[in-house]
Structures are given as C-alpha cells and as structure tokens.
C-alpha cells in the first residue's frame, strides 16, 4: 500500500468535515462513468468500464460442461478476478489473495443471487450438458472503487455476450451420436444468440472516514478509510446492490471500522438513487431500452 503523507490525509479529513471532497464532488456523487463493449474479439462478450481513472476489463468465455448434480438442467457460472500488477504497484503477481477473492465473490454474488443470468435457459442436453459462463475480471488501472467498476464491467460484458453456437458446432455434431436429445436445442438455436439475462441490480459502494460517508471513493479516500499509517482510524466500506424496484439484492461491509444502523439505511437509499442513474448509463451503452 502506498502511504499517503499524513498531511494529505489530514487535509482530506478536514475537507470532509466541511462537507467537501478534494475533487469537488458531493459525498454521494460518482466520478464520470464510461462503458465500452465488444473490446475483445476472442471473448464471447467483453466490456471496458472506467469510473474516473479506475479502469476494469471484463471478458466472458463460454464452454460446454456438466451440470451440478443438484441442478441438472441449469447452466453454471464462475467469476474470477485478477489484481494484475499492471494496475497498481501494490498488486502482486501470484495466486489471488484475500482482496482479489473478496472482490470476485462479491461481484459473483451480485450476479448469482440476483439471478441475472437465466441459467435454466443454458441447458443443452438435460442432465448431461450445459453452458458454463466464465466471467473474468481484469483490473487495468486502479484509482479506487474496484467493487463498483468490476461489477459494472461484468454486467456490461454479459449484456454484450452471444452464446457461441457457431464456434461449438463441431462439438455439437459429435454429441448428436451420444445425446440425440440435443437436436431440440439445436433447432431452437440455429446460430449465435444473446445470453439470456434478467434485469440487473447495480452495486454502489461507499466508504466512511472521519465520520462522513462518501460514495465512489477515489484511491486517496480508500486509503484513508483503510487507515494506512494511522492507527486510530477505523474506516469502513459498504457495498449495496439494488434493483429497478429499489429492492436490496446484496450487501457487503468491509474494512476494520463500523457503521451505525442509520448510516447503513442512508447508504442503502443513496445506493438506490445512484443505482438508477448508473443503470441508465449501462442500458444506453448496451443498446437496451
């Protein structure tokens, strides 16, 4: 972790007490959000999302595999995240650590528990063969708020994804011998088709430090919340995913600080508002609505 000189930390803290942020944003205001899809041609779907200077690339690959025994007619999804050292001097090469795993699991739950992917429509041969959806999150440039940038990149990539019927034609031909029931599926889906998706919840993250709660934290703000170099600091992070109806679909508190009930309720409300705005940006970028 980069140590912010305490002078900077004090300055941001003082600003916060006056209701201000160093880049002039309101406490509940996001930096500029940019979404670009179809950025990787080898992937079934992909998107690069920028929130301020933070930049995340998500790619979707699909494969044919076997279903889990307790859901024999459902597709399978997996989310991985790599904090590659390209994105920050603080990220190290090697197998994912606690931070990358928490990120991947929070993004994964936001998609899985909200049932965005209609996995029941990803069955190829009942009991035997289903689609597997691999969501891979690649952090390219790290300036704070990975949770929201990564979640949004995963969503945008999913919305750009085509089920690769043509690429798997040779495998399907082979399967016809052993699994004749595949013909139903092939007749319904003669060619590539969009991944079947439901409405997406949007994740919104805030951090608390010096008793204020700010949304879409920059790296500087995150580092203050993480108490880098400051022993008394107990910052906290809260991610809330909400849907179009304003319902809560996932939450995750992080860091070694705490929240009051009131702070949590306020954060949920601001997450709903921000979520609605971000959902519009997402829809626009993927040509929905």
């Amino acid at each position, binding site marked *: 972790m980069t140590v912010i000189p305490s002078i900077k930390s004090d300055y941001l803290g003082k600003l916060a007490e006056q209701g201000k942020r160093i880049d002039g944003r309101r406490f509940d205001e996001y930096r500029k959000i940019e979404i670009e899809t179809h950025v990787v041609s080898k992937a079934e779907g992909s998107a690069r999302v920028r929130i301020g200077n933070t930049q995340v690339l998500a790619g979707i690959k699909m494969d044919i595999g076997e279903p889990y025994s307790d859901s024999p007619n459902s597709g399978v999804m997996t989310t991985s995240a790599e904090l590659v050292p390209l994105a920050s001097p603080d990220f190290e090469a090697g197998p994912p650590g606690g931070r990358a795993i928490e990120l991947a699991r929070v993004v994964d739950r936001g998609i899985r528990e909200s049932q965005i992917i209609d996995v029941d429509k990803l069955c190829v041969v009942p009991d035997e063969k289903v689609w597997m959806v691999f969501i891979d999150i690649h952090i390219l440039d790290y300036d704070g708020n990975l949770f929201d940038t990564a979640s949004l990149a995963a969503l945008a990539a999913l919305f750009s994804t085509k089920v690769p019927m043509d690429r798997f034609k040779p495998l399907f031909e082979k399967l016809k011998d052993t699994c004749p029931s595949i013909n139903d599926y092939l007749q319904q889906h003669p060619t590539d088709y969009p991944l079947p998706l439901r409405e997406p919840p949007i994740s919104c993250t805030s951090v608390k430090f010096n008793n204020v709660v700010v949304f879409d934290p920059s790296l500087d703000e995150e580092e203050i919340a993480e108490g880098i170099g400051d022993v*008394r600091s107990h910052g906290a992070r809260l991610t809330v995913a909400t849907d179009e109806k304003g*319902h*809560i679909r996932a939450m995750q*508190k992080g860091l070694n600080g705490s929240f*009051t*009930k009131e702070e949590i309720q306020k954060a949920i409300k601001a997450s709903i508002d921000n979520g609605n705005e971000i959902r519009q940006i997402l829809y626009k970028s993927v040509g929905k609505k």
Partner: protein
Amino acid sequence: MKSDIKLIDGHGKRLDGRKADELRKIKIEAGVLHRADGSCYLEWGGNKVLAAVYGPREAIPKHTQNPLKAIVNARYNMASFSVEDRKRPGPDRRSVEISKVISEALERVILIEQFPRTMINVNIEVLDAEAGTRCAGLTAAGVALADAGIPMIDIPVACAAGKIDGHVVLDLGQKEDNFGDADLPLGLAPRINEVILLQMDGHLTMDEFNKAFELAHHGCLVVSEMQKKALLEKYESVVQPEEVVQDVQPEESE
C-alpha cells in the same frame, strides 16, 4: 436453488418448530483448550465450533509487522468431515473471504494500538456445520479473545436474520438457508452498538431489511448475554466463589 418445501406454516411455525423470532439452541463454553491462550467451544443448532487465540506475540514474517499496532489474523477453517460431502482440506475461496471479514470485524474491537509489531492469531475450526457458521465463528472468537485476556472495547457477537417463504425470521437453519429468499448475517459491537460485520444475499425490500436488521440485532444482544455467562462460569470455576460476586457484578451491570 428453489424447491417446493414449505419452510413456514400457517401458524408461523418453522420446519424445526421454532417461531419467527426464535434462536436455535446455543451452548457456549470458555477455556476449553489447554494449549491456547484463550479458547471457546460453541454449539449453535447443529453447528459445532472451536476458537483458539494465541498472542499477542511478535509478528512473523517480520515484514508483516506494523510499528503502530497489532495485526489480527483470523483463520476460519472447516474440517473435512463437517459437511455432507467431504471438503478437501485447506482454505477455499469461501473460507478466505470469511477469514477476511472476521479479521476486519475483530480489528474494530481489539485495542490493537496497545501491541505494536505483534500479531494476534484467532483460529476458528468448524467441526460440524449447519448454516450460520460465520456468525457462530465470530461469536466464539469473541469469547476466546476475552478468555485470553486480550483488551477489547467490546466482546464481538454475531447473529443472522433472513427471509423464508416471504417471512422475515431469525437465525436460519440449513434448509431455510438453502431454500430461503435472503440471509443477513450481522456482527455487532454490542456496547457501542455498531455494526462490524454485514453481508446480505438474496432479495429484501427496504422494510424487510429494517425488520431483519432489528431481529438480527436483537439476536446479537441475546447471544451477547450468553457469552458473558460462559465467561463468568469459566471465571467462577477458577476463583473463589465469594470473590466472583464482587468482581463480576459491576461487569454485568454495564
């Protein structure tokens, strides 16, 4: 995964006969291990959890030392035989995440600035698992830390609420967790009344969230009393009865 199981009946009675706001049976014992500096054995419904605390001692490897405070390493581990299908030994992604959020929750309550350059290791072993192990683990860790005499602003405690068949209920059991609508594990520092752990999966309206939060909060306070009782019993078992009364009463009145 959805199913046709009816999780709550017309009278608000759950599969195991509990009411909506009723906890599973909980048993807490402090100081159960010989070698550890502090320890706790906890049964919570079908969960069986052991927690052991070692430290503070010099942090190793050295480059992990923080010159200003202790580092807290909570390690949540499931025994291979604690679940239906044998789990491979060693940490998986789920246990790495739970270890992280529990470590962060504990750092909030331990007076880490009193022990610079040290580490405090909190080992949580799940021996038998039946939904709610992270709450059981954080609760056991709190007792083990107190048993080890680690200074804390609060004894941390945790309890979950959730939603089954559209009803908000306290402390989900295994089937309620598998087939329910939402789970909200809550970790609390009860004296300062602040949230130190919070996760949510599923689907809750704002009203349902408020109700679930209240239930889980209430559950935390009930379990917190059991924690103090377990520590008191351990204490009584090692000191003279008359001394106990004097020493512990003020603690209870807080």
